[in-house]
């Protein structure tokens, strides 16, 4: 019965009009995809074009502001030169790399351990913690920023990258839902058989579960690593205003064009900075996109 039906369907697929209809549909889809891709890439390409834009005024100075022509009339590396000579960009980049790496390690550690415990271990206050984490996570963070500043100050940590790392990692214990979802589907029998073999809980986690958890480790680490490259709010308050050397790229670049009394004719320099920042982030992201998509998909149905 089933075989018969397939034959009928195959025959229908082979008719010429059906084929033509399908081809038209495909062409239409491709056109749509191309148009959407242009829309999606238009602003991104514009940043890159601006980074290389070196249009000059009649005195031979770089103009550097937003201009109406999409494609530059003159290109060169002058914006990059300005970026590296007049700002502390290389230092910002190193700072961010450091903060991102350290936050990444700490956050991943916290997130995975909390997620694992919540998923696989049974103890008296497990439910209490789940509820506590959910409620706490629903408060908007900005109001607390002044309090966080004073707390860091009480520890003598303000205006340092170390403080930023601590604050970045501090929320990790609340954002465990996706990782918990991952551990939930790891079969309990795996844990139980290990227990019967006499393994301790620590051994089970480090020797059995973690080696199986590469996708979720990478997903968590990826998010934790890219976070500090994007945060321009908490970082600004924590790092303070007086030391331009100690900023992260996000704060430095944002202040370059939107700080008080910022020169707006550094827009092309800003774009040069953005282009450099984007290279490592995008490379990392795209090479890990498989894991990212796995995580996002898992998160959506949990």
């Amino acid at each position, binding site marked *: 019965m089933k075989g018969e039906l397939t034959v009928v369907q195959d025959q229908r697929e082979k008719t010429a009009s059906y084929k033509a209809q399908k081809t038209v549909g495909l062409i239409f889809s491709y056109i749509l995809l191309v148009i959407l891709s242009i829309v999606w890439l238009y602003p991104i390409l514009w940043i890159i074009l601006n980074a290389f834009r070196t249009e000059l*005024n009649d005195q031979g100075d770089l*103009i550097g*502001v937003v201009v109406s022509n999409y494609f530059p009339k003159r290109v060169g590396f002058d914006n990059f030169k300005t970026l590296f000579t007049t700002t502390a960009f290389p230092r910002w980049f190193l700072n961010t790399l450091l903060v991102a790496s*350290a936050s990444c390690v700490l956050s991943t550690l916290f997130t995975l351990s909390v997620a694992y415990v919540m998923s696989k271990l049974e103890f008296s206050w497990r439910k209490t913690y789940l509820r506590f984490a959910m409620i706490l996570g629903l408060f908007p963070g900005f109001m607390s920023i*002044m309090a966080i500043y004073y707390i860091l100050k009480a520890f*003598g940590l303000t205006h340092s*990258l170390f403080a930023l790392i601590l604050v970045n990692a501090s929320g990790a214990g609340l954002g465990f839902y996706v990782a918990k979802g991952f551990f939930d589907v790891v079969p309990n029998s795996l844990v139980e058989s290990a227990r019967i073999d006499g393994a301790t809980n620590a051994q089970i986690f480090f020797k059995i579960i973690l080696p199986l958890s590469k996708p979720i480790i990478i997903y968590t680490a990826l998010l934790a690593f890219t976070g500090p490259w994007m945060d321009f709010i908490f970082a600004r308050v924590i790092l303070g205003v007086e030391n331009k050397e100690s900023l992260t790229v996000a704060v430095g670049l944002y202040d370059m064009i939107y700080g*008080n009394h910022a020169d707006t004719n550094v827009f092309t320099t800003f774009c040069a900075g953005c282009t450099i920042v984007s290279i490592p982030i995008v490379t990392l992201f795209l090479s890990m996109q498989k894991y990212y998509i796995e995580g996002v998909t898992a998160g959506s149905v949990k």
Partner: protein
Amino acid sequence: MKKLFTTIIAVFSLVLALTLTSCGKKQLTIWVGSECVDFYQEKCDAYVENYNATHEEAFPTSIKVLGVDAGAAAQQYLNDVEAGPDIFTIPHDNMGKLTAGSSNIYPIRSQSLIDQINNDNPDAFIDVIQASVQGTSYYFGVPYIAQSLVLFYNADVLTAEDVKTWEGISAKAKSVSTNDKLVKAADLLGDDGFNNSFLLLAKYFDADNNLTTSVKIYENGVEDANMVHGDDTMAALKWGARYFKVENGATIAGGIGKAGSSGWETDLKDGYALSLIGGAWNYKAAKAALGTKLGIAVLPQFTITEADAYGTISAGTVFQSGSFADCKCFVLKKGSAYQQYLEDIVQYLSSVSMQEEAFTAVANLPAYKNAAEEFAAMKADTLDAKLSSCQIKMFEYGIAQPFGFAQKYNTRYYSKNTPGLIYAWLTGVNSEYALTDAGLMELLQYCESVWSTGETK
């Protein structure tokens, strides 16, 4: 696993090392504007050297000069006094914030420094650096840089004659406008009340050709000495409304208005606006936008027409655009470990000769009252000198922002957003007040009441 742990340990030791190296012992720190860090660092090093040569004991520490954005710095200092520098620079109108309550900054007590302030600075500046704490009035700031608004213009299109009056600029702007390209007479930097003060603070030439105004904003620091609904202000704003008007989302040809979202530099560069009302901090960007075409002038005059005449102000009355004229001051940290040394350093850094050097080296406009006559560099025929002389000229037409007296004045004037309401009325966009004489009168009286009482409706 092993690799992971090695990485973790490596990262941590790096972080630890970085943290430890950043925790040096506390130096005497000074915050100044980013553009003049090197200059003041050099001067401070010289000061320490000289101190060591003339005193038996060596100066207890070295001096570190850092560049910051003054507004953000004042905010950070307020949130965390201990993390602030021993000496820092703020525009005088931020002082109210810092002296609120029992004050977060330290009063000047050295008589020689007070004498220097009294001798060297214009009275307007001396008035606004004083604040009263628990009934006693103190000097809290030492003025050393002045700033006011000037006109940056496109000298290719506008002649020196054109920029004398708004009408001249506007006519030129209209003449170069086409249907596709509406050209504005001038861009404003914003609607925050500092930038559109040129209308509100405009003064007119009375029958005896004296500059006169009925405007009072916290005159002499008195809470309810506010007056902006005089006939002259009414007429000036009515005149302005014709130039600020926005039609179909765009400022009209020959009009005046806030710069668009692409920024005023784009407007100037592409000829969408012929001029900009701006401060010295816009100079560099204006130069980049206009190149050799950049001209600088004092803010223009304007003449009341029949349509604008109001009460005693008749058609034909000439107004001179006004400005808030500010100074930047050094202020001292309260509870500094080096309290006894600070006043002497400040006296040294704000002395007349130092102001002259700063003007030559980094184009800081001196707050010294006779700078225009005494400083040789000011008379040079350069654009830099032109910028300074125009600013100094503008002091005659301007008043210092009177908000140093008390924090609440600053809050009421800026944060209660009355300038925003005035701007909305001028443009006719989103305004709750009718574009009529009655509407304007209602608006101005409301503004006065907000300034005096802090109460919004």
